[in-house]
């Protein structure tokens, strides 16, 4: 459905490209999680998809047609719920919906029906006359989402929609996203909360430095990566233990435990045998794949970003 090919973009006065050849696809009805540290190029990529930035190099197509042409004919097929509260604080909830519905070229009874549907979806009916600036953070996020849904888009771009909200509002927003996915809306969801992505996304794209580091289903990405063993051992001096563990993969101390990223999943039993033969006593050991956060950190490194 949506295909991004070798997309590159450099801001005026930008020293390095914000995007440096990004390619991936999103199929109709998919929920794709877009991950990346600050400055990775996520917002620039989203801005391209929303039509807010022109394509400098590469191409974006929707159903085989260049996105720019698709947007010319129907700019509301792809909608965005931006990270900022992109509405008018001095207007009431209904006035905001009215304004953006008209801007989306909705008219008459259809416009009213969509406004009511979005109010109901975001559970904002009680607040229709409240000025947006007086809403709580969670309600503002819901209004932001409701506005994005007004034109009933085929694809929705959600840019960190749960930043700064309480757990209740966060749960509500995640439920809303799942409901949209069930209805068949294609979703591209960016967040720094890995557990959110794990809970709603069927595919994940991780980008950094304007490039795609990996893309695929969550299952594949986590399975492809090397398995890990986390264990606690006594009876072996630390230096010796470290060299033993390092012979099976990358070893590091996490709290009071050792974590070994194995070079091969099949070497786990051999690791345990080796430790026992060296006189060590394995107090406990857990074997499993990395979670998304570990994968993300491994791919994007630990160094702090601007």
């Amino acid at each position, binding site marked *: 459905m949506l295909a991004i090919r070798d997309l590159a973009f450099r*801001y*005026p006065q930008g020293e390095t490209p914000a995007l440096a050849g990004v390619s991936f696809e999103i199929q109709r009805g998919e929920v794709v999680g877009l991950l990346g540290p600050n400055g990775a190029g996520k917002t620039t990529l989203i801005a391209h998809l*929303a*039509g*807010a*930035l*022109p394509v400098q190099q590469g191409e974006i197509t929707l159903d085989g047609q260049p996105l720019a042409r698709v*947007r010319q004919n129907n*700019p*509301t097929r792809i*909608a*965005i719920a*931006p990270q*900022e*509260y*992109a*509405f*008018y*604080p*001095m*207007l009431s909830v209904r*006035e905001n919906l*009215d*304004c*953006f*519905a*008209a*801007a*989306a*070229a909705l008219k008459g009874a259809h416009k009213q029906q969509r406004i009511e549907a979005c109010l109901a979806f975001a559970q904002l009916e009680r607040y229709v006359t409240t*000025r947006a600036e007086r809403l709580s953070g969670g309600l503002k996020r819901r209004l932001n989402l409701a*506005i994005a849904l007004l*034109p009933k888009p085929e694809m929705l771009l959600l840019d960190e929609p749960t930043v700064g909200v309480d757990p209740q509002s966060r749960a509500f927003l995640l439920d809303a996203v799942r409901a949209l996915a069930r209805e068949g809306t294609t979703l591209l969801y960016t967040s720094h909360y890995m557990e959110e992505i794990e809970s709603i996304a069927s595919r994940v794209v991780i980008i950094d430095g304007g490039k795609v580091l990996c893309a695929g289903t969550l299952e594949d990405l986590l399975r492809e990566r090397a398995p890990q063993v986390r264990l606690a051992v006594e009876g072996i001096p630390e230096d010796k233990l470290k060299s033993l563990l390092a012979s099976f993969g990358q070893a590091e101390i996490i709290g009071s435990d050792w974590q070994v990223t194995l070079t091969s999943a099949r070497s786990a039993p051999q690791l345990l045998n080796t430790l026992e033969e060296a006189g060590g006593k394995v107090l406990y050991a857990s074997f499993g794949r990395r979670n998304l956060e570990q994968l993300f950190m491994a791919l994007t490194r630990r160094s702090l970003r601007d």
Partner: protein
Amino acid sequence: MLLALMKKELLALSRDLHGLAALFLMPILFIVIMSLALKDVYNPPVKTISYVVEDHDGTELSHTLLTQWEKRHGKPLDHADNWRESVQNGTVGYALIIEPGFTMALFEQNLDEQGVQLRLLTDPGMESAAFSAIRAELLMLASELRGQVLLSSVRGAQQAAGNTATALSAEKLIEAERLSAGTRPTSVQQNVPAWLVFGMFFVVASIAGLFVEERQCGALARLATLGVSTRTMILSKALPYLGINAIQSALMLAVGVWVIPLLGGEALSLTKIHWGSLLLILLSVSLAAIGMALALASLVRTHAQAAAVGPIINVVMAAIGGIMVPKFVMPDFMQRIAELSPMNWGLEGVLAVLLRGGRWAEVWLPAAKLGGFALLMFIIAALLFRRREV
């Protein structure tokens, strides 16, 4: 779509009390305060200024002079020894001092050797127009009296002197009148146009403020992603403020016509003015103000910049453009600078209609200048608007 965006603009403005105050209250206050404060500059109250008299001559002729002065200026204050100090500190407006040789001097044909016999000493703070008016009146009275005296001495016909002296005066041959649309210039007639133009340009603050806010919060970008064109966005801002400027104009004129008289000032006169020309020049001012506001709004990045830059530019344009200080009191080089200010073009156009009875021929040039300025500003706004989207 355009109507909904215009409605949004008006709703936002209606909830911005500071913006409303700047657009409506501030120019009204300026009109009221400045019209009343400057009332006497345009109409010096020379007839009501207090004065004292020192008559050291004490003759019939000096008495005649003082009697005629009393008829025009009312009775003098009671004489006091410290009158000079009173004049010096402004508690008395002026003093007339008739020296002992006044009557004798009137009879002399050659005045070169007579020295000063009639003195006018005024409060140091007396406005120059009032000083000139009193001095001229005193000169005229003394000249008439001297005319009477000289003729009577030549003919020896005391009785005929009055008539002849009157005949000598050219006053009846002269009529001085300021040509206008049917009313003489007053502070109201000058101040309403000035502060009306100033107030219309204050849409800069409101437009720029909301513009920055919606750009910062992402609402503008969101409108763009929904397919709203730059042209529609600019129009949705320009059209409501044309209406706001129209309401401002009606309100300011109404204040001049009905409110100022209630406060003791003279009413703004709209009789015999050419309404079509007034509408043309006001529309031109409005377009120029809105165009400048949009260009500035597209240029600034923060609320602080919007709140500071717009009013600063307005005040500077007003200061050099003859809004705060009338152009006619400026020196030549400042008058040439004033002609660079769009506010001056607007002011001259409105004054041409309200004060000089101007019609199309008198307002087309300032209207064209303002129209050109507006077009330039709209183009800059559109270009900056598109650039800021990237």
